[in-house]
């Protein structure tokens, strides 16, 4: 009888990832794919995330603290061409109950973005689509390059 009380598994949406859509800085209505992008999350021991040939990526946000710092490296496979930019995402995380099997998730309110200017930027501009990151149905921020 105890065994049938743990039959459900977590299939609901948990803490949303940050969805970034890449656009062309020259023609800002057009999306523009990134090539050989590696994403390192500062303070996380795991390997970098890697994306290529896509105009849309999702990256996780930390639920402890109020900020996640990303190092985005384009052309990461080519030492001569690679370019590293640091983006800091700031927010206030709020715990929201999901259900028995998933527990709680975080949503992120009042999200802002800070780019560190290193004098050699591949990211030209950032545009917030929504300050409130609640789900993964649409992109949350645009990056122009």
């Amino acid at each position: 009888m105890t065994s049938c009380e743990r039959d459900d598994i977590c299939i609901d949406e948990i803490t949303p990832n940050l969805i970034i859509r890449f656009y062309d800085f020259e023609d800002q209505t057009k999306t523009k794919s990134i090539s050989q992008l590696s994403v390192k999350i500062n303070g996380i021991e795991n390997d970098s995330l890697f994306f290529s040939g896509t105009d849309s990526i999702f990256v996780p946000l930390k639920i402890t603290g109020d900020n996640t710092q990303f190092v985005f490296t384009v052309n990461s496979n080519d030492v001569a061409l690679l370019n590293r930019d640091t983006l800091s995402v700031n927010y206030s995380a709020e715990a929201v109950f999901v259900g028995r099997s998933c527990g709680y998730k975080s949503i992120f309110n009042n999200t802002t973005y800070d780019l560190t200017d290193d004098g050699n930027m591949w990211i030209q501009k950032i545009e917030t689509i929504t300050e409130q990151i609640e789900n993964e149905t649409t992109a949350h921020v645009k990056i122009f390059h």
Partner: protein
Amino acid sequence: MLKYFINTAFLLSCFVSISQENNLQPNDTIIKNKYGLRVGIDLFNPVNTFFNEDRKGLELVGDYRVSKKFYVAAELGYMDNTSDEDYINFTTNGSYIKAGFDYNAYSNWLDREDAIYIGMRYGFSTFSQTLNSFTINNNPFLDDLANTESGQKFDNLNAHWVEFVLGIKAELFNNLFLGFSFSGKKMITTKEPDNFKNLFVPGFNRVFLNNSGFGFNYTLSYLIPLYKKEK
């Protein structure tokens, strides 16, 4: 544990079937049924506490015979239950009352008072939920899942539900009954806590996703006979 219930249920059904084989009914004796108040205690939770320390409860049961086939029935109980899920651990604490009727579908031989019955109850519970600890579920890539101690208490919660009961009762000795019943429950309305949910309700037990639940009772009861009436 279920095995013992089934064994006992089987044993009880043997008693019942033996009594069915004899259809002799003496013409010169008037058979009378006992009417009265039957009070008892649920043995399921006290026994279950030995195997499962997370659930403590006590339930008093009672019924009053109103006609040959119908009984007005009620249960009154208290429960303290801790649920340990993958990402939450919480304790539910409260009391409940259920009231309704039982219909005995079994025709007894001579003056026996056994029962195979169906019934309905309206249930009401007032309780509190304490969120002992929880985990915020995030993308596993970050490896930052942490179990947070909480202790947040949600008071003044309540629930209303209906249940359908199926059970048997056998008279072991004079006026002493042993019963086993199963109930299927459906929640009508609940007062839910903010940013949490009533996943367990005293008297209702686990609240499944479709707002249904089930329960077992294993009762020992005593009939206080008040009067006798011709069968």
